[in-house]
């Protein structure tokens, strides 16, 4: 079973994403900001980190930077933001982004795609 770490400071979104991904058959762990996410990753290595961009304590860009530095053998990354992600895609061309708000089908498709890309 693949593990997805969902990181979002908005509690409602965090819980909704976790429920959806669990229903889809993933193991899900959650964190409400980047630092909490790094703590979770010490306990359980996820296959995919699905992270929001604007968060307190440690934001999305800082979390991505730390994951890339500490997990060089690769963890699939998928960003999401309410901010227009066109600019983020330009700044981080190797990371796929979900534009909030998104629908369930788009979420599942992007999660699958990110995990498949990591396996290859």
């Amino acid at each position, binding site marked *: 079973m693949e593990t997805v770490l969902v990181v979002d400071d908005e509690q409602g979104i965090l819980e909704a994403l976790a429920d959806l991904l669990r229903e889809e058959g993933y193991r899900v762990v959650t964190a409400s900001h980047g630092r909490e996410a790094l703590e979770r990753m010490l306990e359980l290595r996820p296959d995919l980190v699905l992270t929001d961009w604007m968060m307190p304590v440690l934001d999305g860009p800082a979390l991505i930077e730390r994951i890339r530095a500490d997990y060089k053998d690769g963890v699939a990354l998928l960003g999401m933001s*309410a901010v227009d992600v066109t600019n983020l895609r330009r700044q981080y061309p190797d990371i796929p982004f979900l534009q909030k708000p998104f629908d369930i089908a788009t979420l599942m498709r992007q999660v699958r795609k990110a995990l498949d890309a990591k396996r290859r």
Partner: protein
Amino acid sequence: MSSSEQPARLDARVSTGVPGLDAVMGGGLVPSGVYIVVGEPGAGKTLFANQLCYHQARAGARCLYVTLLAESHARMLANMRDMAFFDPALLPEGVYYVSGFRVLEEQGLSGLLELLRREVRNHNASILVLDGLVQAQEAAGNNRDFKKFIHELQVAAGLARFTALMLTSANGPNIHPEYTMVDGIVELRERTAGVRSWRELQVRKFRGSPTLAGIHAFRITHAGLEVFPRLEARVHRSPPPDPGAHRIHFGIHSLDALFPEGLAGGSTSLVLGPPGAGKTLMGSSLLAEGLRQGENCLYMGFYEPPNRLLSKVSSAGIDLKGAVADGRLNILWQPPAECILDVLADQLLSDIRKRKVKRVFVDGLSAMQQAAPDNSRMGSFFAALTQELRCEGATTLFGLETPRLFGPVLDVPMEVGPSAVAENLFFLRHVEYEGRLRRLFSIFKLRDSDYDPTLREFVITRQGIEVLPPFSVAVDTLLTGLARHPGSGHS
């Protein structure tokens, strides 16, 4: 003393970016102040706070927007996306959104305060918005803890030099006593009477400078919030300039002959009359003469759209089209439904100031009155409006429709006496006389000028208005609309 040691300057205000609101607040928010914006759901609090953030971010400031509510940032941004002030390029550097909901749930007010302090520092924010103060209040076990939270936020704002805006739901007409600790309280309201609703803003408290007191209208459009400070609160306190010898005429020889000295420059006049009596033509004549004298003029109307008006007056020999085309005459046309009184005053005075307008005709005083949800205000409003018009040196004629076409009773549909609006009173009336319906002109009152008090018939021809000589035989009761020769016993 280094720049960081400089005390916060009260005169360098934080502009809200909401047109009209800075004027209400005496210049804007005081830097490092903590403010509460209170209002019912849908009152416009979130929109206001976002408008302020994007305005500040556009000027280079960094803003932190912390939510404690269920509405997601994505939904909030989606709602902002069509607003003119919204600029996605300012995200996330200029405006940064985080949720404090979970921290508040898990760590209470102390955790929330720590989050606010830390995130303001991390983002070097000079503006902090806390959206959902009511959640923090509920999380506080008691009033003392909530007061302590506000006090500590005030201390943090002073030390870290950020200005905080806390948004919270209204709790009836009263403001929580705990809120009085803050530097300012702005209340947004939506009121309803019958099927009509309107928005109001009131600064309930403001430290640091005087504010424009009372209740001010605001509206929400594609541009965001726009506040229209109450006219009475911003009226010139000094007396209007002396018009001197400047006199105003209508440019109609037979009419001007009734008061050869003309109207005093900068005076206000009222022409009363039933529908079709000739008020619009009289006002248009006043403007046409002003245009001939090289003056800029303004027509504010509520009923006839500009094209219809121009065509109507043209058929009576008054050609205003050229003046409209070259900008010497502005036609401000407002459909009478759902107008805001202070918006009308603002439009009127803005154009007068901008184009240095010297003659104004307001065709439809009753539409202006209907724009006020509260009639008790009319006396002070018109006193303020006429004071402003005089200060601008704009000679103004108001047209007011009387409801009765004929009959012995004269109804003046005004909440205040006509003298509150005008120094000069003209009256137009239909009168049935010798088997014909005629138009009658009379002067009720003319300040500082002699006038012919006789009742005169006037006609409207393709050359305009023409006032006829006095009736050759005595006619009684002309003003009732049902004239009769004395002693004839019949009308």
